[in-house]
C-alpha cells in the first residue's frame, strides 16, 4: 500500500538495494495528512512551483500598519525571511508579489498574507495558515496566512508581549507548504510559542527532514535514507500495535534528534529524510506538551492514540542513503511519568527557559575550554508528585555526548494560576564543547524498583537546543513605560553598546535624597503592573515581578549622588559565550518610606 507520492518517489529513486517491507509502509514523516477515501494523503504544492504571495495593502506604509504591529517593525521583510528558510533548501519558490487590496483570507485566487482580517481576532488563534487543496490528490492550489488582530507582532524585539513576526511566519509558511506540527521542542513547527521567541527562524533537523521529504531533489534524496517498522506492546499476553506514538531517530554518536514521526493506526511508522548513519529509535506517548488534538491532518482524527505505554528505545539502527531500513520494536512498560515543563539556569547570570512553558532551552555551543553548569527544574505527572525535598527519582539518563544530567538532587513546589501547586524535581546539567548543535532530549528512567533501568524511560524531546554562535549585532534599546509613582518619572538612557570588553553603561534619574537606586537585570522583558504599591498601580513595566528567573540586582547609592542620577556600569566581560545573549534592565527607586518608582526598560543584545 503506497500512502503518498513522496514515498513513491522515494521508491522509484532507490536503486542501491531491494526494499524489504515486512509491514505496510506508514504515512511519511512531515506532511499534513488528510484522509482522502480513507487513505492518509499528504498535502503539497507541485515540485518546482513558484508561489506568489501578496500582502494586504495596509502593510505598504508604516503609517497604515494595523495597530497589531509594533511601530518600527518591518513585517513584509520578516515574513519573506520566514518563507526563505524553507525555500532555501527545497525545490519550491515563494516570491513577494507586492500589495493587494484583499484583506480577508479565503479562496479568491490570491495567496495572501494579512494582518487586517477583522474576523480572525475572534477566532482565538495568534496566526494560522489556510490551505486550499484538490481533494483528489492533495495538491495545494492556494494558501493564505492570517495574523490575528488581537495580538501584538513586531520585528524590533522591544515589545515584551509581542510575537516575533519572522518566527511566526516561518511556522505558518511551513504549514502553507504542507507540513504538519512537530512534537520536537525547538522545531519550527512545534505548535507552542511564548511571545518574543525566535527559534523557528532557524530550521531544526526535523524540519529539514520534513521539507526535503515533501519536496525532494535527486541530491537531497541521495543524501538521506529512511527507517520504517512497527511499534508494538504486550497487552494481556497479546502483542498489539501502538497507534499514534511519537517516534524519534536519535543520532547514536552525538545524541541529536534528527527526525521524528507518528505511528499510524496499525502502529506502523516511516521516518524519512534521515542521513546515513547509526541511530537509536525511541518512541514516546503523544501525551504532552503536544497532544493528539494539536495535529492538523484529518487522517489523525480516526487514529486511537495509545498514550498509556512506556517509552521504548532500540539499539543502533544503520541507515544508508537512498535505502529504507526496517526495524520493528516494542514498548514493554506502562507510562508512569511524563515531563511537561522545565526551566533552567545557566552561568548564574539568568539564562533560562520559562517554567511551565514549552520553549526549548536554547544555548550557544560552548567554545573550547568553557562549559555551562545549570540546574534543571522538571515537573509533570510522576515526577516527584509529593514535592518531596529529597526525591528518589526518576533518575536522569545521559543521552548526548557533551550533555551530562544527574539527579534529582532536590524538590519542592511552584505556585501556578489559581493557587495550584506544581511539584518539581531539580537536576544538575553540564554542557561541554563536545556537544553537537541541534535538538537534544532530556531523558529520565521511570524505574520504581531497586534496579536502575527496570522500567521505561520518559523524555522531553528536543528540550535542549544547541545553536552555533552566530555574529550578533549589539543593541541597546530603551523601551516601555515605567511607573512614576508619587515622585515623577524615572528616565533611563544608555552610553556605548553591549560589546564584549567595551565600556557600556546605563544612566538613571533623577533620584530624591531618600531614594535608593536599584537596577534589576533579567532575561525577560515584562509589562506587569506593580499592583498593591501606592502610586504604582498603573505601572506598565516591572521586570522585578517577572521573577523567579535568575537575575542580578545592582545597588546604587541613596539620592543618586551629587547629580541626582546614577550611572550603572554594564560593561560586558570579554567572555565569548556571552555573545548573542539578550538581557533586560530596569531601574527602581525605593524610598525609605517604601514608595517605589520604576524606569522604562533597557534591552541589551550582546555582541
Amino acid at each position, binding site marked *: 500500500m503506497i500512502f503518498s507520492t513522496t514515498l513513491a518517489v522515494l521508491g522509484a529513486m532507490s536503486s542501491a538495494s531491494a526494499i524489504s517491507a515486512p509491514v505496510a509502509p506508514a504515512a511519511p514523516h512531515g506532511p499534513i495528512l488528510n484522509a482522502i477515501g480513507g487513505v492518509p494523503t499528504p498535502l503539497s504544492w507541485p515540485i518546482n512551483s513558484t508561489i506568489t504571495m501578496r500582502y494586504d495593502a495596509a502593510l505598504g506604509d508604516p503609517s497604515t500598519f494595523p495597530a497589531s504591529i509594533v511601530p518600527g517593525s518591518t513585517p513584509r521583510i520578516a515574513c519573506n525571511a520566514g518563507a526563505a528558510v524553507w525555500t532555501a533548501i527545497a525545490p519550491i519558490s515563494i516570491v513577494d508579489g507586492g500589495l493587494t487590496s484583499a484583506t480577508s483570507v479565503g479562496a479568491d485566487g490570491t495567496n495572501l498574507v494579512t494582518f487586517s482580517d477583522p474576523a480572525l481576532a475572534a477566532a482565538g488563534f495568534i496566526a494560522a495558515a489556510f490551505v486550499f487543496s484538490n481533494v483528489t490528490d492533495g495538491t495545494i492550489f492556494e494558501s493564505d496566512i492570517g495574523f490575528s488582530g488581537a495580538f501584538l507582532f513586531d520585528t524590533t524585539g522591544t515589545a515584551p508581549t509581542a510575537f516575533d513576526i519572522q518566527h511566526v511566519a516561518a511556522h505558518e509558511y511551513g504549514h502553507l507548504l504542507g507540513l504538519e506540527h512537530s512534537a520536537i521542542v525547538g522545531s519550527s513547527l512545534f505548535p507552542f510559542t511564548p511571545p518574543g521567541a525566535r527559534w523557528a527562524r532557524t530550521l531544526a533537523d526535523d524540519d529539514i527532514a520534513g521539507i526535503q521529504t515533501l519536496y525532494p531533489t535527486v541530491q537531497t534524496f541521495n543524501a538521506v535514507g529512511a527507517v520504517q517498522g512497527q511499534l508494538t506492546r504486550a497487552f494481556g499476553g497479546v502483542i498489539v500495535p501502538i497507534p499514534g506514538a511519537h517516534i524519534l531517530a536519535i543520532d547514536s554518536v552525538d545524541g541529536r534528534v534528527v527526525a521524528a514521526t507518528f505511528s499510524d493506526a496499525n502502529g506502523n511508522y516511516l521516518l524519512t529524510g534521515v542521513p546515513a548513519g547509526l541511530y537509536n529509535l525511541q518512541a514516546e506517548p503523544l501525551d504532552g506538551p503536544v497532544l493528539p488534538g494539536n495535529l492538523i491532518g484529518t487522517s489523525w482524527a480516526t487514529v486511537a492514540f495509545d498514550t498509556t505505554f512506556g517509552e521504548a528505545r532500540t539499539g543502533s539502527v544503520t541507515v544508508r542513503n537512498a535505502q529504507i531500513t526496517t526495524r520493528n520494536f516494542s514498548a514493554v512498560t506502562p507510562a508512569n511519568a511524563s515531563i511537561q515543563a522545565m526551566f533552567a539556569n545557566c552561568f548564574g547570570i539568568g539564562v533560562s527557559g520559562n517554567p511551565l512553558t514549552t520553549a526549548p532551552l536554547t544555548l550557544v555551543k560552548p567554545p573550547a575550554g568553557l562549559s555551562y553548569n545549570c540546574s534543571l527544574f522538571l515537573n509533570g505527572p510522576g515526577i516527584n508528585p509529593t514535592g518531596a525535598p529529597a526525591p528518589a527519582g526518576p533518575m536522569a539518563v545521559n543521552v548526548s555526548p557533551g550533555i551530562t544530567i544527574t539527579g534529582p538532587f532536590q524538590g519542592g513546589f511552584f505556585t501556578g494560576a489559581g493557587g495550584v501547586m506544581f511539584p518539581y524535581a531539580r537536576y544538575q546539567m553540564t554542557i561541554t564543547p563536545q556537544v553537537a548543535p541541534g535538538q537534544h532530549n532530556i531523558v529520565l528512567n521511570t524505574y520504581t524498583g531497586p534496579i536502575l533501568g527496570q522500567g521505561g524511560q520518559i523524555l522531553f524531546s528536543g528540550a535542549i537546543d544547541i545553536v552555533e554562535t552566530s555574529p550578533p549585532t549589539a543593541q541597546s534599546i530603551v523601551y516601555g513605560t515605567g511607573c512614576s509613582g508619587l515622585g515623577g518619572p524615572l528616565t533611563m538612557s544608555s552610553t556605548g553598546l553591549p560589546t564584549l570588553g567595551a565600556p557600556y553603561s546605563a544612566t538613571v534619574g533623577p533620584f530624591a535624597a531618600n531614594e535608593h537606586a536599584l537596577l534589576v537585570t533579567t532575561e525577560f522583558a515584562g509589562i506587569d503592573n506593580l499592583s498593591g504599591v501606592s502610586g504604582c498601580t498603573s505601572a506598565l513595566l516591572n521586570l522585578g515581578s517577572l521573577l523567579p528567573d535568575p537575575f542580578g540586582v545592582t545597588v546604587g547609592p541613596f539620592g543618586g549622588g551629587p547629580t541626582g542620577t546614577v550611572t550603572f556600569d554594564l560593561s560586558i566581560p570579554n567572555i565569548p559565550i556571552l555573545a548573542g545573549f539578550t538581557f533586560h534592565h530596569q531601574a527602581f527607586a525605593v524610598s525609605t518610606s*517604601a514608595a517605589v518608582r520604576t524606569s522604562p526598560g533597557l534591552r541589551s543584545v550582546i555582541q
Partner: protein
Amino acid sequence: MSYSPPSRFSVARLTASVLAAGVIWTSTSQSEAGVVQPELREAITRGQHEDLSRKATAYVAPKDLADLVKEADRIVIGRVAHSEASWHPTRKLIFTHASIVVEDTLKGDPVATATVSTMGGIVGDTQLTVSAAQHLRPEARMALFLKWSPEFGLWIACGASQGKFTVLRDGGRDLVQPTVRYVTESYVPFAEHDTRGCVEFGAFRDVVRSLVEEGEGR
C-alpha cells in the same frame, strides 16, 4: 557619577515580596556559581508564577478554564451526531458544521442539540485545511465551550481548539482530555492529571459548574 557593582554578573540576588503597602527587598549573596538555591527560587516564585505561566502560549491564544467559561455563551456535553461542510455564504471559506446531541448543558439555556462550526472541510473537489482548527470526530463524546461569532454568523468553539475537550472511556472511568494541557492544569489539581493530561470527568464538570456559578454571581 558612576557606580560599579562589586562583581559584574555575579552580583547579589534579591528576594522580592510585594506586600500590600510596599516592597520589601532582601539581598542574599551568591554562593554557588550557576545555581540558584531552589528554596530561594521557590520563595521568589510564590505568588508571581501566574503571570509567567500565562505567557506560555500556543499559536492559539492561551486560555485557562475560567477564561473559557467566561467567554462561552453555551457549554454543552454531548456526542457528535453528524457533520457537513459548506462554503460560508459571505466568506470564501469552508466550514464544517457538526450537530451535537446534547446530554448536559452546563451554561446557557438547556438544549437538546447544538451546532458547532469549525474552519476547514471538503466541498466538491476542494479541501480547506486550517492549521489552528480542531477536528470533531463522528460519534466522539465531547465537552464544548461555544460562542456565537457575529463575524461569521456561526457558533464556534472558544479559543480555537481549546474550547474542545474529548471525553474518553478508560478502565471504566470517564476522563476528559484538553487539547492544551494548560487549560485544565490551571484549575484542576496537578496530581489529578494522568500522564496524558486527562482529568476525571466528574471533577472537570464540577469545576466548570462552579466557575459558571461564580460568573453568574450565585
